[in-house]
């Protein structure tokens, strides 16, 4: 009986949404067919870069057999939807710090799904919160003389990320490149950095040096709980100030990958320490296992 109900639910939605989909698509082609035909004809001669255009192809084709690219996307989505769903069941509806119990559950989920040990507290240190609103940061200088014209590895990155500009000051720990260190390591850190309010961490007033040293380039897992996207980043700056209403900041690359925006579209992320004593986990985007 239960299996039949499950099957009915899918069949009903499939039929209803299939009809709805075909109607919307037919309406689009009926109203704008000339322009869409023109585009299809034009793009026959070229490799189409925009994956989203695939959705437009074949006006009379409905979607019972999804195109390969869409199917591959759906598989990726599918892995993430369980993460999103699990987190949604734990996270508070309003923006507030997580309770110990919530942090514990989130830590277990993130560790399991991303295959890293993600914890809210490491070596007795923690931040003031592990769930908060992320704001946009600028690029930071990796070395003396670093500027926006030499900052990027590729012209694509320059086009995509140069508009965010360089911050006038240095990161919380000075230049990203450390003495006798290859530049590519500093480049990776600067690319995937976050700013967290180290000055609000428990124990800061009593022993600020200890806290500051602990957080320097500390590796953290940053997760957008609403789309399941995650990045391994380092703490590269201290901030933002409390009056901004933001709880942490992300580099342009971090924000872009997580699909988080500043201003009125600001949204929450989870940020947990990664216990990686041998420094084996690479920085950058990380997928659900």
């Amino acid at each position, binding site marked *: 009986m*239960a299996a039949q109900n*499950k*099957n009915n*639910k*899918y069949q009903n*939605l*499939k039929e*209803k*949404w*299939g009809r*709805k*989909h075909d109607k*919307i*698509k037919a*309406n*689009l082609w009926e*109203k*704008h067919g*000339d*322009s*869409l035909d*023109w*585009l299809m004809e*034009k*793009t026959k001669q070229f490799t*189409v*870069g*925009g*994956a*989203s*255009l695939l*959705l*437009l192809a074949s006006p009379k084709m409905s*979607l*019972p057999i*999804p195109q390969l690219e*869409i*199917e591959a*996307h*759906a*598989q990726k*989505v*599918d892995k993430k*939807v*369980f993460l*999103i*769903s699990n987190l*949604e069941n734990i996270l508070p509806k309003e923006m507030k710090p997580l309770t110990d119990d919530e942090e514990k559950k989130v830590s277990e989920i993130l560790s399991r799904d991303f295959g890293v040990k993600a914890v809210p507290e490491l070596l007795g240190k923690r931040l003031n919160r592990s769930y908060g609103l992320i704001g946009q940061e600028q690029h930071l200088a990796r070395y003396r003389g670093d500027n926006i014209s030499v900052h990027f590895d590729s012209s694509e990155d320059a086009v995509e990320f140069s508009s965010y500009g360089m911050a006038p000051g240095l990161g919380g720990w000075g230049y990203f490149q450390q003495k006798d260190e290859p530049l590519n390591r500093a480049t990776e850190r600067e690319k995937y950095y976050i700013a967290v309010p180290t000055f609000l961490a428990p124990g800061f007033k009593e022993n600020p040096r200890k806290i500051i040293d602990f957080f320097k380039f500390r590796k953290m897992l940053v997760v957008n709980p*609403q*789309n399941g996207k995650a990045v391994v980043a380092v703490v590269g700056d201290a901030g933002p100030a409390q009056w901004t209403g933001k709880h942490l900041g992300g580099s342009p690359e971090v924000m872009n990958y997580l*699909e988080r*925006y500043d201003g009125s*579209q600001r949204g929450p992320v989870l940020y947990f320490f990664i216990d990686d004593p041998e420094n084996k986990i690479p920085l950058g985007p990380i997928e659900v296992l």
Partner: protein
Amino acid sequence: MKHFYSHLIEIDSLIVEISNLEIEDHEKKHLINLAESSIYHAVLDSILSELKEEDKKIFLEHLASDNHEKIWKHLNQKIENIEEKIKSAAETLKKELRDDVNPAPFSHKVKGKR
């Protein structure tokens, strides 16, 4: 898939609701595909309906090259309050889809008629 309008339209909540249905994984994927594609076509219709023929072609060329920056520059020049129009078209459809996933119990429909 990141569309040029992804920052305006949040569909994760709908995806979560689909994922919570007690149906097979491949069935969930199919429903997600249908929902995404329907929203995509509704958004395109809301945009193209506001543009003149020549401007439609410029928009579609930018869409084909997946150049989000040029798409937005063009749309902001040609259509007033375009973001609101896109949001409105998508939200209306999204609400319909969500209502389909979680239909209101019968008792809600007759509430107040006693």
